[in-house]
């Protein structure tokens, strides 16, 4: 943030108190360093609770005030609350949808209760045992700043704490009390607490710095991986352009130059090339793991259209907006390919495409006007027969219609391809 005014400082503090979940609009980042920071924070709070109980149970002179007796219980509850919540965030990734103001209030109250109970459980120099809270603070600050898009500068935290009004006020009060209490109790009770607070800030700074470095390293690794993947993809594309696309274009060019081909054939060759390019586009989308059914059937709609076939019916976006896993997508694409080619080869002049989805299957049905076909007639070894073997005997349904055939292929949405279909906008 870099601002220096009091209001900017207050805003910064409130943003940190609100915590990372207040700023996490995106689906949770499951990067390794985020998980490390979350687990570190959870472990730190757990350790603090354990240290608190260890000290409480082993201390020689335990206070007997009822408030002090309840302090370890309150301290452990708060620590475990923070710890379990962080673990759940790491495992599940989502928090309860508290509004911003409520988050600030709840976390402020819990923080105040944590500090009070911590120093009540471990008074005097024993308060240095609360060092794990510094780790938790550093991890929490790092997580929040990443969610905010805020570049951390932990090296400035301790100097800023020393000159902060809170610290100066505490030091002033301490000196004043020491001047009027010659017994030295101030130096044995309040002064250690101040030192413990310094310890928290220093540890928090070190932890935040370390996590920030890890985060930067992970980002750099990710960038390198993206760059490497992009480079491989460019090489593949260049290879494909050279081997397939340019060769095919050259073939058409030579045929035209040698006058060995009719104009209609040139158009057909170019349409074939267009189809190959669109299939290539589809395979590229498969690699993204976010392919929609609409994108899978589109090349085959164009293929049919360019073959002079009239397309009577196609599904709308509402019916084909499902996003499917790559595995389902490839099987579905194969089914659409076989069914469309089958109709075109049979001499269809009109085709309809229908897509339906049930809990267990994603189905494509293609209805044509190219005469009849029944299941027992499927020639062994041909594409339709192979598709039936792939999908299962009952999953390729051939139904004669008045003018032709309706063939429906049901692609399984099983645990094997567990991502299945999800409805997308």
């Amino acid at each position, binding site marked *: 943030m870099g601002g220096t005014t009091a209001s900017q400082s207050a*805003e910064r503090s409130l943003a940190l108190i609100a915590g990372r979940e207040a700023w996490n609009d995106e689906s949770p980042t499951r990067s390794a360093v985020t998980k490390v920071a979350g687990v570190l924070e959870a472990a730190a709070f757990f350790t603090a609770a354990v240290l608190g109980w260890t000290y409480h149970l082993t201390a020689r002179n335990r206070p007997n005030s009822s408030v002090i007796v309840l302090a370890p219980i309150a301290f452990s509850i708060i620590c475990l609350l923070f710890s379990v919540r962080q673990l759940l965030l790491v495992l599940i990734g989502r928090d309860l949808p508290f509004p*911003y103001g409520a988050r600030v209030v709840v976390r402020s109250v819990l923080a105040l209760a944590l500090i009070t109970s911590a120093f009540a459980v471990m008074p005097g120099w024993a308060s240095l045992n609360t060092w794990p809270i510094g780790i938790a603070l550093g991890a929490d600050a790092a997580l929040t700043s990443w969610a905010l898009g805020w570049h951390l500068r932990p090296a400035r935290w301790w100097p800023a704490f020393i000159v902060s009004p809170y610290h100066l006020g505490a030091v002033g009060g301490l000196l004043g009390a020491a001047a009027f209490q010659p017994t030295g109790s101030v130096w044995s009770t309040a002064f250690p607490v101040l030192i413990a607070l310094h310890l928290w800030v220093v540890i928090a700074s070190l932890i935040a710095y370390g996590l920030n470095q890890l985060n930067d390293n992970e980002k750099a690794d990710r960038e390198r991986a993206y760059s490497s993947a992009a480079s491989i993809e460019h090489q593949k594309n260049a290879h494909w352009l050279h081997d397939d696309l340019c060769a095919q274009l050259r073939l058409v060019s030579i045929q035209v130059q040698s006058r060995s081909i009719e104009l209609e054939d040139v158009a057909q060759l170019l349409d074939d090339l267009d189809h190959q390019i669109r299939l290539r586009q589809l395979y590229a989308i498969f690699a993204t793991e976010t392919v929609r059914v609409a994108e899978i059937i589109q090349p085959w709609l164009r293929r049919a259209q360019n073959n*002079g076939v009239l397309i009577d019916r196609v599904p709308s*976006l509402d019916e084909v907006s499902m996003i499917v896993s790559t595995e389902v997508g490839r099987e579905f694409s194969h089914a659409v390919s076989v069914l469309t080619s089958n109709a075109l080869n049979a001499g269809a002049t009109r085709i309809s495409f229908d897509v339906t989805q049930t809990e267990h299957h994603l189905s494509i049905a293609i209805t044509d006007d190219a005469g009849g076909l029944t299941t027992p007639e499927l020639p062994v070894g041909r594409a339709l027969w192979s598709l039936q073997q792939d999908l299962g005997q009952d999953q390729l349904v051939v139904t004669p219609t008045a003018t032709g055939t309706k063939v429906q292929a049901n692609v399984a949405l099983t645990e094997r391809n567990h991502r299945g279909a999800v409805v997308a906008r």
Partner: protein
Amino acid sequence: MAQLLLVDDASALAELFALAIESKLGHSVAVAVALADVGDALKKIDHLDLAIVDLSFPQEQGTGLDALAEIHLACPSAKLAIITQGDLWVAQVLRDAWELLPIATVISKSAPLAYQLAAIESVVTTGSAPVDPAVQTLLPATRSPYRTLSSFASLVHHGGHAKLWTALLSSNDPSYKEIADISGLKLNTVKNYRAQLLPDLVTHGLDEPTLRQMRDFAIRCRPFLAPYLDVRDCK
């Protein structure tokens, strides 16, 4: 003879297609090969019957949506048609155009020429034509009655929202910190403004969008959002 305007950045293809329309259908066709040329082209035409607009302009900052909005504003009576490859690259822009503007038809660039010409002639003579089947799968069965040009007014309740959208439009990688820095708003104010807009964004198909998704939406629909950002009194 009808007056047509063809807007497509593939200049050679556009000229050839315009020639085909003129020779086969007998209509007059003006061609604009850049979004910036659309205004000049409109000035040169007395009366526009049909504008045929491509959606993808990869060398420019805008999309065909900008051209469609400009034409619709200048000539509300002109019919609007889209000619597009209709692939994933333009799917969202196509949907926005379809839902927000009175698009008479959508023609696939990969369709046979005769099919394309028949669709154009149908729009000229009857006012509409069936959407090309190859592109139909990218469009919803019905247009949402709630998603209209006027629905963008509810995305700018006050000057603070205008600041938020303006900051999003100028941000490369929006985070709360960056938007706060650009807009001068406080972090929690940015958060509150985003929360206030969430119910209205559902109309535009955005369910709990991130700042990045809001930025993409704002850039895509800039021609419809911008008028509300300009006229509001920003505090």
